[in-house]
């Protein structure tokens, strides 16, 4: 059996990675006969019959006309191509040569044997070659050498990417490979890698990077001439294509089990890391490949994917499998992916290390810096994965919460993976492992406990709130929620158990049922309450529309369902609360998913307290993000891991929408999603909503100690507002209804009005968990009452402004509740982070997870950045003149960015990116300022100084500490970015996008923080203390990061957590207001992250596409991305700018890229126009100049403009308007992200087909950019690179009748000339 499997695998592998690829192979016209072979052929006596087995295009068939040249080729296309030149071609297989024995005078086997997957097959091929050769005849064999001057392979079995120029369709059938993948013992990691490929773009990139890096190292040193023409841009694109290829393989193998999505963050991280390594890739010279190609394969521009052997990784897989009892297959896949990831990471690390040590002409420091961010990213992602695993376990079994050990195991498992990485990156990896493990274990335990507590508390709170508020709807809610939620939960459970695919179908069903239920509910709501009725009608209409939508629309339907649910919930606010409570309780006990969902909600709210629950949820979200860089993916992934996703969604509203539909927790999600949706449709509304929320929070702070009560009270008013707004919303919804999103938004708005109670319930739940924190916060608040007042005041004006803006005011009010909900969640997180230092990592993770969910590609970075921003903001808040300081910081950042750009000699091309980086750095300014000092030290330092001056001394100290830490990180990031810019590789883009995201988040956070700061000025001292503590922790974390890449990643996470803690502390002090702000900011950040992630992915895709070839799809994607970015306002602008910068670089490098840029620009302009409209609306609603400026800046692509906008925002942040603007921007981002998600969803279904909705969306996104967008498809050819003497040994040992005449190393290949001898057997 094993032998058969092995044979079948090898056959499948060869078919997929050799034969199918060569069917698509474009022979490089440059390819010329290898001189040595040419000499050999010329030396043959006339009349010799020579067969070139594997003749390719027949370039060796015309060398010597005095001999009879037979060309043997298995590829139909190549054989026909060779036949066109009047060559005698035979389609044959080296393993079964159709020649008589001893019939040929010479045989050529040029670059053929290394395509055979097993030693047996290689031997068989050699024997066949010897058989047909006459005695005395000579055989020339060339195989790719493992020991190459230009590249070094970690494994002998590698997949070498080859990009096909314009072909969109890949002919490779991975089904065969899937079998091999299933077997953990496969000799070829290629299978696993391929399976992982869905989320492995980063892997492949890393592989490529490795190979390239190695090649560059050796190649440059040894053969600089050869390295002269490595198309870095082209290289980057192949990576993506490879990624898509892997995805395809994985998809085929997994058959839609996309749970792996959670793993994507790893890939992303690794991808990022790869990006860091990209410079090496550029350096890399495909010469070796080319030479090999000279023998038959040309244009191996892409770095090879090394197929690492599974044996090392297998143990790792096992633990994961254990963690995932329900879906072992998926777990296996994940494990495989993780392995591959680990391998990739290791490779990357190696590459990074090598790069660093090698100290290439390029920025060595930048490499190091890049490495550190990568490490941080990796660490972040790893915890996420662990959390995800935990969440999965929880989902699978309700006991998951009770089983922290599983999580620990998962953590330990993760470390194992890390160990593999460590092999390559030993020192840092080990440290990181320990840190991560500890952090994860502690976080998970805490999170679990907290989740349990929170769930209980939430349930009680929700019940109380619901009953208090409205009794009429309770019956309806109970019926609806019980039925829908139970059904949904059941469906979700089934789906999870059945696998992602089933879950997706179930999800759809659930959504349909939920829609129906929602209609019923809506009607009931109508009966129950008039205010609700209009919204219900709208909801019903919307639901009907949604129901009509197709699968692609299914996502939207899910959203609508969620909205419907929301509506129903809203209609029966009490019932909704009850349902939410029920769902919470039921989820906890009955459906682990539901419980998870609730927990996540609480988690996002309170990373520390809810870290346990949030931890799993966050991992899921992270995983979703990782797996699906784009938000859509997260949504899809959420379906399988819906509970998690929902939790995540809470943080990331767009995600929550999708998730919400499938599960009962959807209520919360729906609420959050609803908030987001409204924000999408009407940013202005969101702003007003936020304001009311703040008011509510203020009220809650003032009125009742129990957060639940507070929330309930504020929520009610919000509901009223929403109800009042409902008519407007209806109108808006009608207008918007044209677009599904708008519909959902409207629904959401309605749902907000109706669901406000529900939301309040959710909030209350969260509040319950938060109450403890809140108590602390209350104490702080007592000290800092002014903060709440300030925030409320600011919010109130915003609301008024919104009211001024026609019907938008109403919508805004409606949306406000949503924001409030979101905000509430965030505060919990903040509280949690504040509560425990240990929780900080957890909180960071949770935060990251939330953010990551939104930011699929760069969750860690974004989260980290966001966190950083928060801390900074908090710090600023602490200082009375925090706003001013922030403004100063922003200015300084802008200056620093400018300086950096200027300083960055890497030119105008890089300038945009440099600007972006600098902007990002500026945004990070407090911490980043010092870092900037390093790069453009003056500007950054100045900004930091300025900010510090404004701030209180304590604040200054804390800020300085943070700034130092942040600056270090920023410096690293900047260096990485610069390097990336230089390289112009995808990783750079990713980084840039991440940075942009972070910057945008930071800006938004800063704005919020500024407001808070103004409010919190009184409580600066307390904050200062907190900040100090945080800074200390950060400082600690930072050094660790420096120590090792992984550690750095962990540190980043820690740092993020620390900021979060600071923010949380500030929030606690500010209480509800701060919490709300933080929540909003988190939500915004999550959205922005999502958008950024999407943008990043898109950017990556675009880059790859550009590198590969410009395609309309890519342009469209860019446009979409651009739109998203534009919508993102400043953040979006930054991302866009980064992209633009990338594009500019690409343009300079590649004309095609320039074309793409041009196309993208128009698209961006379109997006800007649309976005600008949105932003204008938002601005009108907010009536904040800052917002407008931000929008204008956002419209403007200039990096400095972004910084300026940030600065403006920060300055304006003092005013409530600024907050509104930021919120609006955030909302716009969210809306953009939503739109993107929708687009992605729409795109994904086709690609993914019948897979899990969440996974599908993610996958589709991933696949879309590569497949749809990217005109070029990267094919991977399998190579078995031969070690020195390996082929000789094979011949000597297994082919008796061949006598090796000469064995030489040429052109990265082993060239053996053997003569057939007569073997006398006695």
């Amino acid at each position, binding site marked *: 059996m094993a032998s058969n499997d092995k044979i079948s695998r090898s056959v499948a592998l060869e078919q997929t990675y050799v034969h199918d690829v060569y069917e698509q192979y474009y022979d490089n016209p440059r390819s010329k006969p290898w001189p040595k072979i040419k000499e050999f052929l010329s030396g043959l006596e006339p*009349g010799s019959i020579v067969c070139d087995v594997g003749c390719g295009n027949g370039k060796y068939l015309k060398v010597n006309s005095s001999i009879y040249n037979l060309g043997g080729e298995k590829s139909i296309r190549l054989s026909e191509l060779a036949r066109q030149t009047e060559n*005698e071609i035979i389609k044959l297989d080296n393993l079964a040569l*159709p020649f*008589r024995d001893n019939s040929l005078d010479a045989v050529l086997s040029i670059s053929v044997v290394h395509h055979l997957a097993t030693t047996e097959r290689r031997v068989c091929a050699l024997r066949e070659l010897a058989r047909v050769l006459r005695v005395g005849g000579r055989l020339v064999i060339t195989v790719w050498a493992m020991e190459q001057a230009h590249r070094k392979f970690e494994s002998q079995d590698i997949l070498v990417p080859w990009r096909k120029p314009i072909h969109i369709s890949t002919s490779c059938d991975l089904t065969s490979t899937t079998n091999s993948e299933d077997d953990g013992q496969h000799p070829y990691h290629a299978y696993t890698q391929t399976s992982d490929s869905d989320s492995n773009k980063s892997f492949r990139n890393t592989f490529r990077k490795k190979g390239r890096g190695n090649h560059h190292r050796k190649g440059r040193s040894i053969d600089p001439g050869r390295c002269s023409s490595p198309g870095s841009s082209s290289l980057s694109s192949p990576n993506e294509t490879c990624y898509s290829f892997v995805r395809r393989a994985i998809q085929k193998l997994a058959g839609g089990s996309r749970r792996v999505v959670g793993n994507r963050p790893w890939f992303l991280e690794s991808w990022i890391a790869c990006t860091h390594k990209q410079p090496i890739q550029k350096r890399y010279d495909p010469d070796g490949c080319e030479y090999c190609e000279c023998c038959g394969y040309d244009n191996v521009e892409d770095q090879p994917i090394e197929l690492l052997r599974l044996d090392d990784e297998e143990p790792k897989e096992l633990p994961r499998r254990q963690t995932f009892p329900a879906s072992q297959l998926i777990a296996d896949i994940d494990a495989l992916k993780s392995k591959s990831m680990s391998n990739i990471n290791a490779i990357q690390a190696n590459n990074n290390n090598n790069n660093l040590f090698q100290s290439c002409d390029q920025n060595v420091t930048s490499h190091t810096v890049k490495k550190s961010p990568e490490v941080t990213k990796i660490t972040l992602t790893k915890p996420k994965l662990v959390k995800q695993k935990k969440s999965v376990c929880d989902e699978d079994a309700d006991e998951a919460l009770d089983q922290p050990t599983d999580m620990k195991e998962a953590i330990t498992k993760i470390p194992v993976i890390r160990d593999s990485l460590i092999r390559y990156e030993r020192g840092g990896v080990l440290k990181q492992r320990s840190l991560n493990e500890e952090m994860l274990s502690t976080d998970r335990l805490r999170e679990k406990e907290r989740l349990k507590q929170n769930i209980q508390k939430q349930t009680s709170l929700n019940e109380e709130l619901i009953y208090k508020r409205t009794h009429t709807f309770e019956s309806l809610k109970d019926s609806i929620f019980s039925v829908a939620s139970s059904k949904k939960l059941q469906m979700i459970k089934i789906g999870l158990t059945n696998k992602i695919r089933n879950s997706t179908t179930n999800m759809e069903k659930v959504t349909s049922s939920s829609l129906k239920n929602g209609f019923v509910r809506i009607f009931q709501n109508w009966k129950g309450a008039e205010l609700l009725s209009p919204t219900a009608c709208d909801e019903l209409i919307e639901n009907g529309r949604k129901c009509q939508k197709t699968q692609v629309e299914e996502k939207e339907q899910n959203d609508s369902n969620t909205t419907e649910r929301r509506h129903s919930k809203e209609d029966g606010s009490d019932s909704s609360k009850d349902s939410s409570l029920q769902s919470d309780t039921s989820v906890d006990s009955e459906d682990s998913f539901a419980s998870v969902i609730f927990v996540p909600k609480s988690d996002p709210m309170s990373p520390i307290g809810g870290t346990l629950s949030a931890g799993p949820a966050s991992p899921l979200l992270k995983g979703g993000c990782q797996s699906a860089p784009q938000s859509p993916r997260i949504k899809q992934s959420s379906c399988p891991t819906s509970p998690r996703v929902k939790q995540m969604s809470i943080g990331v509203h767009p995600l929550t929408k999708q998730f919400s539909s499938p599960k009962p927790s959807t209520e919360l999600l729906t609420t959050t999603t609803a908030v987001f949706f409204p924000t999408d449709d009407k940013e202005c509304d969101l702003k007003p909503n936020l304001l009311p929320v703040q008011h509510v929070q203020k009220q809650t702070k003032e009125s009742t100690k129990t957060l639940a009560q507070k929330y309930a009270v504020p929520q009610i008013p919000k509901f009223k507002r929403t109800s009042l707004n409902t008519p407007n919303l209806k109108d808006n919804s009608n207008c918007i209804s044209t677009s599904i999103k708008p519909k959902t938004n409207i629904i959401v708005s309605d749902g907000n009005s109706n669901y406000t109670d529900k939301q309040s319930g959710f909030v209350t739940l969260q509040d319950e968990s938060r109450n403890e924190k809140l108590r602390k916060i209350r104490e702080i608040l007592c000290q800092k009452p002014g903060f709440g007042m300030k925030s409320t005041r600011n919010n109130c004006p915003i609301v008024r402004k919104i009211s001024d803006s026609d019907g938008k005011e109403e919508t805004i009010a409606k949306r406000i509740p949503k924001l409030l909900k979101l905000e509430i969640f965030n505060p919990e997180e903040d509280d949690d982070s504040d509560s425990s230092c240990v929780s900080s990592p957890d909180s960071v993770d949770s935060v990251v997870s939330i953010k990551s969910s939104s930011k699929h590609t760069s969750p860690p970075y974004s989260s980290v950045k966001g966190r950083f921003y928060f801390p900074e903001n908090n710090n600023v808040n602490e200082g009375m003149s925090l706003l001013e300081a922030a403004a100063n910081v922003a200015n300084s950042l802008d200056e620093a960015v400018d300086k950096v750009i200027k300083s960055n000699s890497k030119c105008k091309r890089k300038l945009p990116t440099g600007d972006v980086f600098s902007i990002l750095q500026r945004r990070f300014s407090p911490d980043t300022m010092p870092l900037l000092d390093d790069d453009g030290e003056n500007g950054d330092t100045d900004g930091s100084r300025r900010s510090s001056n404004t701030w209180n001394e304590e604040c200054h100290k804390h800020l300085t500490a943070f700034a130092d830490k942040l600056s270090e990180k920023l410096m690293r990031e900047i260096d990485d970015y610069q390097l990336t810019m230089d390289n112009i590789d995808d990783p750079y883009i990713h980084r840039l996008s991440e940075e942009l995201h972070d910057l945008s988040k930071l800006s938004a956070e800063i704005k919020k923080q500024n407001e808070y700061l103004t409010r919190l000025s009184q409580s600066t001292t307390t904050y200062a203390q907190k900040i100090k503590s945080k800074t200390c922790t950060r400082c600690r974390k930072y050094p660790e990061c420096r120590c090792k890449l992984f550690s750095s990643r962990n540190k980043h996470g820690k740092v993020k957590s620390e900021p979060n803690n600071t923010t949380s502390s500030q929030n606690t002090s500010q209480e509800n207001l701060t919490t709300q702000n933080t929540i909003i900011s988190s939500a915004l950040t999550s959205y922005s992250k999502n958008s950024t992630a999407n943008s990043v992915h898109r950017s990556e895709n675009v880059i790859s596409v550009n590198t590969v070839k410009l395609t309309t799809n890519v342009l469209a994607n860019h446009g979409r991305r651009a739109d998203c970015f534009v919508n993102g306002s400043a953040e979006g602008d930054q991302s866009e700018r980064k992209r633009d910068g990338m594009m500019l670089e690409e343009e300079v490098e590649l004309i095609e890229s320039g074309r793409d840029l041009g196309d993208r620009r128009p698209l961006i302009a379109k997006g800007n126009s649309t976005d600008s409209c949105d932003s204008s609306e938002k601005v009108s609603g907010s009536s904040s100049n800052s917002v407008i400026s931000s929008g204008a800046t956002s419209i403007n692509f200039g990096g400095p403009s972004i910084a300026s906008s940030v600065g403006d925002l920060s300055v304006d942040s003092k005013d409530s308007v600024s907050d509104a603007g930021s919120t609006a921007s955030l909302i716009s981002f969210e809306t953009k992200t939503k739109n993107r998600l929708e687009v992605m969803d729409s795109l994904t279904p086709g690609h993914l087909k019948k897979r899990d909705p969440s996974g599908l969306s993610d996958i589709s996104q991933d696949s879309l950019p590569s497949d749809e967008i990217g005109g070029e498809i990267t094919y991977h050819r399998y190579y078995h690179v031969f070690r020195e003497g390996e082929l000789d040994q094979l011949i000597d040992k297994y082919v008796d009748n061949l006598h090796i005449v000469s064995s030489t190393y040429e052109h990265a290949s082993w060239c053996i000339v053997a003569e057939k001898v007569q073997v006398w057997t006695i």
Partner: protein
Amino acid sequence: MKLLTHNMLTSKCIRGVNVGYPLSINASDVRVADVDFNPDFISRMIPKIDWPVLYNAVERLGHVEDLPKETPVNYESNEDFLKKAHHALLEVEIIHGELVCPESGRKFPINNGIPNMLLNEDEI
């Protein structure tokens, strides 16, 4: 496919086939092309080929023309023979048709002058 190539082909790789030679030809499209005559090349090629198989193939295709059934003794100096052999070996091409394994009857299609000698995995 030239008849010289056919002279080398066998189907012995098929499982259960011992010799698989010569492959019978079922040609639907035979083309005669002009190829530069190289007497040295042909004279060197004659001993490498199975002349009866070639003759049967030529006969099968109807291009025997005066090709002797057996190679003359001093063919190296027999330019006329070499030209005939040249014509049979290099100028007669099977564009479309099929090769049939004499033992298993397995058919190998010839398309565009390219014989497809690929076997399925289960045939090896």
